Every structure is written in structure tokens, then in C-alpha cells.
């Protein structure tokens, strides 16, 4: 077990600037949303504009919650992501076929695997948190399921629950795990790395939505998602990559490195959204849940981050941690 120097560093000055920039973007978005409501919709109910405004409102709540967690340092961030994993996993198992015999497995997922994974990150034990779920929990789950004595669709049930734990807990936990990396010359600024990943990937989502509404025509994957267009994809990922490059100063990357890393996580984010859409399509639902007004469920908001986080983590760990 390796313990790096305290990551509970005070708020870095750059974090403050980033926070102010995000607030600025939110104020700008809220003004645009309000103007659209008055000029285009004239105060009448309007599907697209009302959805846009509830999305902006939800973003205010998300930004305030993330900021609050950041002020509490490592413990706050680990708690925040643990809560998000809980909500995401709850949505996932709700839409997943399980049987009474799986009850013990579900209890293991929620009450043991989830808190333990985040505890291992909190104590910064890389050697265990990187294999705990994919090795130990994955082997334990079918064992417990077999104790249930019900062989009906056995492999399907187990595999679906494992996949849920993988995306909702294991992948997502790689965001707070960024705090455990020892990057020379980057001490005390790890929170910025989390903010960077979230901002670039979420900006890519938002910009894909905006570009798609403006110039999107041809659908990328009509069988999977009706809302993803070529115009949205190129415009969104292109502009989010530019944003990620422009934010290089809050990362350990040089500008060209920031561009490549941004492009990678934006692409992973897009592909993650595609995969999660395919799962939703298969189940015949439009959203994972209703937790976040305008966005759908927790998983609808996290699908892209979930796929980008482990890749980002290992890129940083491989090239920037000696």
C-alpha cells in the first residue's frame, strides 16, 4: 500500500478561477434560456426550450454539489462519487432482470462492494482497488448466486449484475481515484484533474446537443440513438477538444498533449453514450430514471463520464506518474 502526501490540500487558486468560469457559463446559459423562453416560446409551454431550461437548472445543482464536495477535499469527493455510484446502480438494477435468488448478490453489490471500493480509494490502495471488483467481487457474485439454487437464465443474470457493478461503481470510482496519483510538479492540484475530466466530457455532451440542434441532420447510429447526428458529433467533439486544449494550464499536460487527451476522452464519452443507449433501447426505455429533471436519471448524465474515466486515469498514470 502506498500513501502519497496529503491530497487534502487547500483550495488551489486555479480551482477558484475555474469555478468562476463555470459560474459564468451557467449564468450565460440561464440568460439564453430565459431569452428563448420569452422571445421564441413567448412564455408558452415549448418542448425543446423547457427541456433546455430544466437541464440548465439541473446543472446549477450539479455544479453547486460538486463545488461543495471539492471544498471538503478528498473525503468530500469520495463521498460524492459514492453517492452517485449508489444512485446509478439503483437505476441500473431496477431495469435489469433479476430473480429472488439474486437477493444476496444484490445486497453484496450495494452494501459491500460499493462502499469497500470507495474505501480502498480513500486509503489510496491502488493495488487492490484496481482489481477488487473485476477479480474478487466478480468471482464471488456467481458463487453467491449459485447458493440461491435457481438456474433460470443464470449466466445472463450474473453477467448483467457484474456489468452494472463495472460501469456504475468500478468505472466511476476512477474519478476520485485520480486523487491518489503522484504526479511530480502537480502536488495539491489533483481536484483540478477531476474538474478537467468532468468539464471536458460534459461539455462534449452539451456541445454535441447544441451542434446537433443547429446543424445536425444525418444520424450517426439510427438504430441506437435518435438524437446523435454527424454534425453534432463532429462539432461537439471538435469544440470540446478545443476547450480541453485551452484548459491545459490546469493540468500536468502540454497544450498538444491536452488536445490528444481531450480528444480521447470525448470519443470515449461519445461511445459510452452509444453503448448505454443500446442497453436502454433493448429494455424499451428512453431514460434510465427520473432523478435529474430534464436529463433523465443519474446514469443518463454519467454514461459518457463512466467510459472516459478509467481511460483518462490510466493515460495519466502511465505517462505522468513516474
Amino acid at each position, binding site marked *: 500500500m502506498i500513501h502519497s502526501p496529503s491530497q487534502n490540500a487547500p483550495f488551489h487558486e486555479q480551482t477558484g478561477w475555474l469555478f468562476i468560469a463555470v459560474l459564468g457559463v451557467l449564468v450565460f446559459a440561464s440568460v439564453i434560456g430565459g431569452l428563448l423562453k420569452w422571445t421564441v416560446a413567448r412564455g408558452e409551454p415549448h418542448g425543446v426550450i423547457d427541456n433546455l431550461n430544466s437541464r440548465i437548472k439541473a446543472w446549477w445543482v450539479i455544479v453547486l454539489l460538486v463545488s461543495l464536495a471539492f471544498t471538503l477535499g478528498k473525503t468530500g469527493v469520495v463521498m460524492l462519487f459514492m453517492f452517485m455510484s449508489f444512485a446509478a*446502480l439503483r437505476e441500473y438494477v*431496477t*431495469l435489469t432482470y433479476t430473480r429472488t435468488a439474486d437477493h444476496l448478490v444484490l445486497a453484496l453489490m450495494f452494501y459491500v462492494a460499493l462502499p469497500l471500493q470507495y474505501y480502498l480509494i480513500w486509503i489510496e490502495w491502488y493495488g487492490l482497488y484496481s482489481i477488487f471488483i473485476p477479480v474478487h467481487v466478480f468471482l464471488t457474485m456467481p458463487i453467491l448466486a449459485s447458493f440461491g439454487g435457481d438456474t433460470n437464465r443464470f449466466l445472463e443474470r450474473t453477467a448483467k449484475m457484474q456489468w452494472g457493478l463495472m460501469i456504475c461503481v468500478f468505472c466511476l470510482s476512477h474519478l476520485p481515484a485520480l486523487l491518489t496519483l503522484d504526479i511530480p510538479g502537480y502536488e495539491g492540484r489533483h481536484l483540478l484533474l477531476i474538474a478537467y475530466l468532468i468539464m471536458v466530457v460534459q461539455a462534449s455532451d452539451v456541445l454535441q446537443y447544441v451542434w446537433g440542434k443547429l446543424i445536425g441532420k444525418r444520424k450517426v447510429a439510427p438504430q441506437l440513438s435518435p438524437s446523435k447526428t454527424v454534425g453534432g458529433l463532429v462539432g461537439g467533439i471538435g469544440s470540446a477538444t478545443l476547450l480541453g486544449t485551452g484548459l491545459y494550464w490546469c493540468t500536468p499536460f502540454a497544450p498538444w498533449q491536452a488536445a490528444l487527451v481531450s480528444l480521447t476522452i470525448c470519443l470515449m464519452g461519445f461511445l459510452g453514450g452509444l453503448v448505454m443507449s443500446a442497453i436502454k433501447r433493448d429494455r424499451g426505455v428512453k431514460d434510465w430514471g427520473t432523478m435529474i429533471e430534464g436529463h433523465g436519471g443519474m446514469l443518463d448524465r454519467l454514461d459518457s463520464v463512466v467510459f472516459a474515466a478509467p481511460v483518462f486515469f490510466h493515460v495519466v498514470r502511465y505517462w505522468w506518474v513516474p
Partner: protein
Amino acid sequence: MISFLKRMPGVAAGELIMFCARALTGVRPLWRGSLPTSARRVYFANHGSHGDFVLIWTTLPAALRRVTRPVAGQDYWLATAVRRFLGSKVFNALLIDRMKSQPHQPSPVDLMADVLNKGESLIIFPEGTRNTTEAPLLPFKSGLYHLGKKCPDVELVPVWIDNIRRVIPKGQWLPVPMVCSVSYGAPLAIGPDEDKATFLKRAEAAVLALRPQESIEP
């Protein structure tokens, strides 16, 4: 002041139970055909778990919750001190003696009608017992029909509680988190010459029709 202090433990326990219910199930009401109004109502729902009326209770607005009483079996709710406390101080349940231990006591329908005549609403589970079978709904008992006949101006609101049977499956004690929903449908009225069997079939169909498409429950 004294009465407030006396009510405190019940209110606090109620809030705690609702907090746990929300944390585990993220439960939300779906008002599909009726709205939460102060009309006197009989909410009749599917019954798969002891958590059922907790979810109805949690999804009702606070003002309605105070005047809505679940109807429950006396044998179960008087059995231990904790259940007695929950039944009387928290949920304010109307207890029905299913065993008919004493002769000459008023019938369950009369007891329920008394509560409705006082301006309060009721939650009932017409299946009569928890459904632990593979069928989505058991045949309804006739109490709902007789109650509707006795109190014709009370709204009979069908309710479908979704997913709670996966939170606590039969034979398990530890709940696992699953998103649940409570769907409230349009009130039913008993037709002037509708017979008991026809109405009960219609009431069952009204409850089943509220089941969400994506529902996985057995």
C-alpha cells in the same frame, strides 16, 4: 404542548421511515388519471410486501397523509410492541380483526365506512393478503364492492405499486435498493346495476392497467 410532545415519537419515526423509503427506492408518485386532492378516497392497491403502504404514504402530500389511514390486520399489527407503536402512533392504521375473536363486533366494512364518514381516506389491499405468487395480482375480495356501495360519494382510486416486491422478496429481511413508483389511476364508480363480480373484475383490471411497461416484477 403536551399533546405535541406525545405525538413527537410517532412523527419522528414516520419521518425516519419515509427517509429510508426514499433512500432505498427513490419512490415517486405518478398521478395518471387522478390528482392529489382532499376528496375522500379509498386507495386500493396491489399488495406484495410490508413496504406497500409505506410507499403510498410517502408519495401522498403531507396534508393528505395525515388524513389517510391504512387498513391492516389486527393479528399482525398488535403482535409486538414495535408493530403496535408503528400501527397506532405512526401510520394511524385502522385495525381489522380478521379472526373474529369476539361476536357482535361491527363488520370491517362498517368500521371503514365510519372512518370515511369522518372525512378521512383509506388505503386498502383488496387481495386480502400479501401476494407471494408468480401472478401479478390475486383475485380481489368483496370488501371493496360493499364499501363502495355503502359510501357511494367516496372516490375509489386504483393504485399500482411497482417494484417493491424486488426490494424485499418473500422470505428476505434485508431490503436492497431498487427504484419504485406508485401510480394513481382514475377513480372508479360502481354502476347502478353492476353486480359484485363484474365490478371486482373491473377494479382488478384498473389496477393492472397502471403497471408500467418496463416493470420486471414477477
